[in-house]
């Protein structure tokens, strides 16, 4: 009798343990139909595997798994109640509105810079919105595809003011801090080598440690993207003692990354961005989008907001997807101001529509 009771207890607890943390329910899972298809296709021809489109997976699952940074002030970070907020988080929300109509069908995966691409490659996340610079090797060798940039950044240095550093050459022999695993690291090495400037590098895992090192004068300069430089400077009480150098070492266009060969999904990410740009170009904000919808005569605006051609249906979305995005999340300018412009005092720089002197150009919606 005792044995049976023991056995029953053990079985029940093992069952509960398995149910509770069974990996199957956790993460992106292909649907039953798509499991059958690759299995059938795989058996005779193991080389060519038919992949389920990410869009189908996302729709079946009911939410998008987004890879983000959990500790990048302004772009993506955690609030006290545990929710994510920031510029890139708002972009993810726009994506969620595009696919599902509400901004909360999201699951965020915090990733370090080491794992961000591997997480995307392995299928753990659907899309990566984590300050990923677009460059040729990432686009080709790593098996990723990028959208147009959602942020034009450049790499520069932050130094202390009035100690006579005005150009890169003044940094000869200095200690310079840089984030590991990023393009900033390789760019810094390359440009210093090409200009034959000797320097002492120091790599850090995250911004916070770099900030400590810089404040305590462990390093003379910090090499970061211009946007991070502004955020960096905003964090110091006596910001007047620091400045960013004028020079830009490299182009750092940040884009949304998806996997190779995932065209439908990439189209959605791409045109979500274009919708945001469009709103910015034509001054359609969350406040006035209803009014614009009822009064506009431009055929393109009608297409965008869902009254003209059925653009949304072509991508597998509802037709008012762009309208919902602008209404619920805002246009690019609103997102920028909300997260970077007002709290962090980041200037738009090149991150403006082409008709305002910037580099954003929404491709035509027709």
């Amino acid at each position: 009798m005792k044995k049976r009771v023991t056995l029953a207890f053990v079985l029940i607890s093992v069952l509960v343990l398995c149910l509770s943390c069974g990996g199957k329910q956790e993460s992106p899972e292909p649907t039953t139909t798509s499991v059958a298809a690759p299995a059938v296709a795989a058996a005779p021809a193991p080389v060519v595997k038919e992949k389920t489109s990410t869009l189908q997976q996302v729709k079946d699952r009911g939410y998008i798994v987004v890879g983000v940074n959990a500790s990048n002030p302004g772009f993506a970070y955690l609030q006290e109640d545990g929710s994510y907020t920031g510029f890139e988080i708002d972009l993810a929300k726009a994506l969620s509105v595009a696919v599902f109509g509400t901004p909360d069908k999201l699951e965020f995966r915090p990733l370090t810079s080491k794992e961000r691409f591997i997480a995307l490659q392995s299928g753990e996340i659907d899309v990566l919105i984590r300050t990923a610079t677009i460059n040729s090797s990432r686009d080709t060798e790593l098996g990723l595809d990028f959208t147009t940039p959602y942020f034009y950044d450049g790499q520069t240095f932050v130094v202390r003011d009035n100690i006579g550093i005005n150009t890169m050459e003044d940094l000869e022999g200095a200690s310079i801090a840089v984030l590991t695993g990023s393009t900033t690291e390789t760019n810094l090495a390359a440009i210093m080598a090409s200009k034959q400037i000797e320097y002492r590098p120091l790599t850090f895992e995250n911004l916070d440690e770099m900030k400590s090192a810089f404040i305590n004068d462990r390093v003379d300069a910090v090499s970061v993207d211009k946007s991070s430089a502004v955020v960096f400077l905003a964090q110091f009480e006596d910001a007047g003692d620091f400045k960013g150098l004028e020079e830009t070492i490299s182009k750092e266009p940040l884009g949304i990354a998806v996997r190779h060969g995932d065209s439908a999904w990439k189209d959605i990410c791409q045109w979500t961005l274009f919708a945001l740009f469009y709103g910015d170009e034509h001054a359609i904000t969350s406040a006035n989008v209803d009014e614009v919808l009822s009064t506009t005569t431009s055929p393109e605006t009608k297409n965008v907001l869902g009254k003209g051609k059925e653009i949304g249906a072509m991508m597998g979305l509802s037709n008012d997807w762009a309208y919902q995005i602008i209404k619920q999340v805002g246009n690019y300018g609103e997102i920028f101001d909300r997260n970077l412009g007002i709290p962090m005092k980041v200037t738009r720089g090149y991150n403006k529509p082409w008709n305002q002197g910037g580099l954003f150009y929404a491709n035509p919606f027709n």
Partner: protein
Amino acid sequence: MEDGMSLTRPNKTNIPLWQDTHKRQILAQFIFAVLVIVIVSLLYGNIIDSLSEIGMIPSFRFLRMDSNIDISESIISVDNTSSNLRLIVSGFLNTISISFLAIIFSTILGLIIALCRLSTNYLINKLAVIYIEIIRNIPLLLLLLIWYRAFFLKLPGIKEAIIFGKTLQEGGQTQLSFSLSNRGISMAWLRPSDHFTPFLVCMAIAFVVAIALGIFLKHRENHTGKEQRIILFPFLLFIGLSLISYALLPNAALQKDIPVLGKFNISGGLHITAEWFSLFSGLILYTSAFIAEIFRAGIQGIPKGQIEAARSLGLSHMKTIRLVIIPQAKVVIIPPLTSQYLGVAKNTSLGVAIGFPDLFAITGTIINQSGRALEMIILVMAIYLTLSLLTSLIMNLYNSRIQIKER
């Protein structure tokens, strides 16, 4: 004889197959081996499939490609055109240099703290207890982070560095003999000059002579039964011969390397970065607490009767310690000490958290830049495994040497 009372062995073929333990074991092993092979090949096959899906085929060719990054400190020279392999070697050397020195110093510090812990002075005793308890109960990662951020980074900056021996040379250079700042320590040091090779040759000769002496002493020990200083005398001979050859050589084999104050940093001399030193000291602090407890357990485990007997034989305090306590304590201390030493080598991998480019940090960087996760991990595991096995081999040799042979 065919009566039923045969006293010979029972016929082996009478045992049915399923009751024969021997056969059952062979069958079980066979099934087990098949299972292991099947599982391993399945896993490996899956990995290769996943990698080829995204277009990456495992190969080690990336080791020869340029790394494109600079690292903050290295014993061998690296720059951004060095191959990935060279970078890995540099990381490996960093790891080894820190582990080796950390093992030595943490043993010394551990011994001191163990002595404090055994002291009769109440304050010293309790201070040691507080130290040990605090260090043993927080994770090493947290200790390193606090130690680096709250202590090292708060040292004076380079402009307010603590400097000794500052002199102004004719060329306008400022030389100094020692400086301490939150960037690290720089001190005047010696380095090989152009005439180092003859000295190296002399040192090699001295080494061979010392080994010969060691062999001779061991021979004598085996013959006469008297214990000889097999390690100490050859070591002293080696040092002595090297010093003599250094003095007698016409050209100085070593030259002075004096730190020079530059615009931003101090160059020249022996430079120990703050990251190296904070990892080093953090490891020492952490490991010494555990080693102190090991020493204490070993020393307190010796029965009081031994000490009383030694006293009754008229042995002085120092002789008691040297001849009675230490040999017995050694037997008990060495095995846990071995595992602590292995832990030191593995704990250096936490340097990644404070910006020290040890082997693991460099692995992470290379994985990131090249995407070759599988290959790098296999390589790194092999390196750490070799290191661990070597260390435990050496320690086990020593262990078997000092075992008290009991009847």
